[in-house]
């Protein structure tokens, strides 16, 4: 246990000390002396961000339900806290027992975005755990990682002892049980690692070597041991109703990004948007039943005291019995003043029906994601919504009294022209005009249209994985094209830093050599890169120069379809053939319909969507 007197002294000096104390309602404090396997779960960002992540609440409760296991949390301390901790030589500790992270058996990171990777190194360093996997011994925890970014594990392969590819509910317990068995027998670190590599979905980087061509592309990946698998298949939960679902959630004292019950209603997505990694890797769609959702939502409201349930998934309007679900939830919750919300809505008729139901309780701002400004470009990326969808939905919501509308776009999508980019302005203005086209007495509230543009980052396991990213100069030229054309105080235009997206592109499609870059950048003080006020672009550029790492090679280069990609050894379910077909169709501006309408043979085995509808 850490020195609590030192901690007390530090907490008096830092901002928002409640981030560092634990003790929240529904947090679990076990006696560590009676525990066989200690797991420290880390979201490598600040507390408020990490606590808003649903996966944390699932794994936390899953592990803590087991008598022999414990799961405690650790986040990235904010800059001021880190400074004080380093000054007082206080090691990083878990929130529950205030135990040193180093004394745990596992330190598990969830990888939600690439720009959190320097925080992983910072957390290891603050915990006095060697940064490189090869330097760790029995004195150190196993550093493991999972989550969507683990589908390309290579850029952090040197830091992580093993990766979990796919959904973690089942495999986490398999790992901890295996560890317990090994600990109870004769402990041999190497033997445990070898055996863990046999579990489906586990990737142990040290058992593989990568051979490169002269042009720096990958020649092949070699398994160094005949016993380890040459391809790694993702793990997937077959039935969501019988899967572990938490009935409790930790309720933070401080306000977090999502201060509400987050209720998962299904996994996967059927739309097949070509830029979207989540839409590919989480296939197939698997729904929780309405009864199960209502039952869980009730328990969660009871155990947390929250006043809002957010129905979460990749595209919540697609839930096959959404209307029934909302009606049931409304019936249960209306007099308790509990609201129901959907995190993101599509611009189509089904969302109008849903809005009719949920508006009874609260009217907040609405967010829509057309992603591209023109129909042509929306066809390229296969975002299956039309101008008519937008017209219908927006005119409906204005009539019903909403007046704050947010629109999300991407800039730098494949084949994009200036005309497509200017479509962002056209759409935002169109929404404004629709508001003022209403007779004055029907307008409610004060109109505010916000158009936000992020810079497109091609991701592994999407049809755009072969495409080069736009250059930073081009990003800026296009951004200012839109920005300078918007001259209306009702319309706001925001954009993300192209520099940050450039680095994200380098890391997202990086290979093992990128590990060195991340390490060097961290040594130069990079951390919290996702927070624009802390992003040190110059330090990253310096690191690339010193290590002779070519950013163009990773970010902006077009790959040929037969190039060996760093993540090719991972099987996410969708086949490479399907991704190639979609890639070619995108260039021909051909769309692919929702797979609820027709099976497109994406390669998923045992998909339950065949013939339309679920099951």
């Amino acid at each position, binding site marked *: 246990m850490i020195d609590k007197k030192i901690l007390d002294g530090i907490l008096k000096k830092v901002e928002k000390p409640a981030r560092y104390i634990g003790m929240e309602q529904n947090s679990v404090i076990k006696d560590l002396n009676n525990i066989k396997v200690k797991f420290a779960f880390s979201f490598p960002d600040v507390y408020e961000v990490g606590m808003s992540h649903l996966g944390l609440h699932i794994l936390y409760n899953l592990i803590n339900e087991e008598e022999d296991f414990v799961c405690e949390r650790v986040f990235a301390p904010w800059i001021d806290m880190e400074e004080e901790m380093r000054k007082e030589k206080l090691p990083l500790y878990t929130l529950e027992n205030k135990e040193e992270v180093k004394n745990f058996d596992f330190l598990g990171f969830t990888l939600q975005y690439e720009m959190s990777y320097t925080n992983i190194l910072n957390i290891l360093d603050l915990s006095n755990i060697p940064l490189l996997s090869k330097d760790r011994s029995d004195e150190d925890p196993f550093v493991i990682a999972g989550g969507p970014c683990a589908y390309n594990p290579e850029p952090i392969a040197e830091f992580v002892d093993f990766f979990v590819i796919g959904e973690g509910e089942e495999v986490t317990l398999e790992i901890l049980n295996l560890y317990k068995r090994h600990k109870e027998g004769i402990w041999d670190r190497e033997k445990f690692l070898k055996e863990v590599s046999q579990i489906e979905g586990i990737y142990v980087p040290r058992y593989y070597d990568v051979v490169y061509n002269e042009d720096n592309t990958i020649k092949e990946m070699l398994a160094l041991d005949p016993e380890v698998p040459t391809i790694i298949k993702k793990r997937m939960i077959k039935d969501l109703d019988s899967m572990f679902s938490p009935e409790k959630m930790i309720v933070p004292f401080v306000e977090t990004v999502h201060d509400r019950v987050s209720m998962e209603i299904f996994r996967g997505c059927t739309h097949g948007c070509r830029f979207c990694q989540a839409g590919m890797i989480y296939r197939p769609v698997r729904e929780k039943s309405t009864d199960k959702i209502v039952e869980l939502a009730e328990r969660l409201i009871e155990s*947390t005291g929250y006043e809002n349930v957010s129905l979460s998934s990749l595209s919540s309007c697609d839930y096959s019995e959404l209307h029934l679900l909302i009606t049931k939830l409304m019936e249960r919750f209306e007099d308790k003043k509990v609201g129901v919300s959907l995190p993101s809505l599509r611009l189509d008729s089904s969302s109008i029906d849903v809005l009719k139901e949920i508006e009874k309780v609260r009217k907040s701002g609405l967010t829509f994601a057309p992603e591209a400004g023109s129909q042509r470009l929306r066809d390229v990326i296969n975002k299956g919504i039309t101008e008519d969808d937008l017209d219908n939905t927006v005119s409906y919501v204005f009539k019903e009294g909403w007046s704050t509308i947010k629109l999300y776009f991407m800039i730098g999508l494949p084949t994009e022209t200036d005309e497509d980019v200017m479509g962002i302005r056209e759409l935002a203005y169109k929404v404004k005009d629709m508001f003022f086209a209403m007779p004055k007495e029907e307008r409610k509230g004060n109109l505010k249209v916000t158009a936000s543009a992020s810079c497109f980052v091609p991701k592994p396991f999407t049809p755009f994985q072969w495409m080069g990213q736009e250059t930073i100069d081009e990003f800026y030229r296009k951004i200012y094209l839109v920005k300078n054309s918007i001259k209306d105080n009702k319309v706001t235009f925001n954009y993300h830093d192209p520099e940050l997206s450039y680095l994200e592109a380098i890391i997202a499609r990086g290979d093992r050599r990128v590990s060195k870059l991340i390490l060097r950048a961290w040594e130069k003080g990079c951390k919290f890169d996702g927070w624009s006020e802390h992003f040190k672009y110059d330090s990253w550029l310096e690191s690339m120069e010193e290590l002779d790492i070519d950013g163009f090679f990773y970010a902006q280069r077009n790959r040929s379809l037969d190039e060996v990609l760093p993540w090719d050894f991972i099987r996410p379910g969708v086949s490479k053939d399907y991704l190639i077909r979609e890639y070619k169709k995108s260039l021909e501006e051909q769309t692919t319909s929702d797979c609820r309408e027709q099976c497109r043979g994406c390669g998923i085995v045992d998909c339950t969507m065949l013939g339309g509808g679920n099951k």
Partner: protein
Amino acid sequence: MILRLIFNKKNYLKYIGHLDLMRLFHRSFGRADIPIKYSEGFNPHPKFSIANPLSLGIESDEEYMDLDLEEKIPVEEFMEKMNKVLPKDVQIIKGVYLEKEDSIASLIAWAYYEISFDIRENNSKEELENIFNQWLLKEEIIITRLRKKGKKKIEKEENIRSFIGNLLVKQVKEKEITIDVLLRSGGNGNLRPNDFIEAMNRDTNLNIDLDSIMMKRLSQYAEKDDNIYKPL
């Protein structure tokens, strides 16, 4: 139906800010099924107020809250339900239904603090009492405070001598000193314990180690005709 409560705030929970504490209570009323009254209007909010918000990092044995209920429920039942859902370091100690009373926020006039800190050299209890008495003999103890006036911040000097009540040296363990002190609190003059300690450190030559300071609010008082009394 106004229920006046005393609750405490201890250990790590002293790092929960006032707004976070309000949200904690709001959620806890919901979880304990307390029929709390809501304000009328477009965005109804629950009717309860905590008097005299505590600064971050200070423990308390005695915080006051007034709570408006739709219907009367027995105090024991209320406390049992609430204390079950509240963290163990924030617990309700006492509750009384009020007839007609002024709001708790307007009543509180003094707060009693226990402050412990380390000083540079050993001093006996008598020596310390002497130092403090000398200091308090002064007619003026001036501190400067930043005041916000609209967007501008202006420095304002204030004589805090009349804001300091009884001062008692409670314990002396070599360089570790514990004092109890009564300070003005609330709308008619307010002296934060941090400002008090800072002034004391400035005017005496104790050389307080500022990192070692620990504070706890022991109790709070209302005032009537020059007498102080507990509002519950």
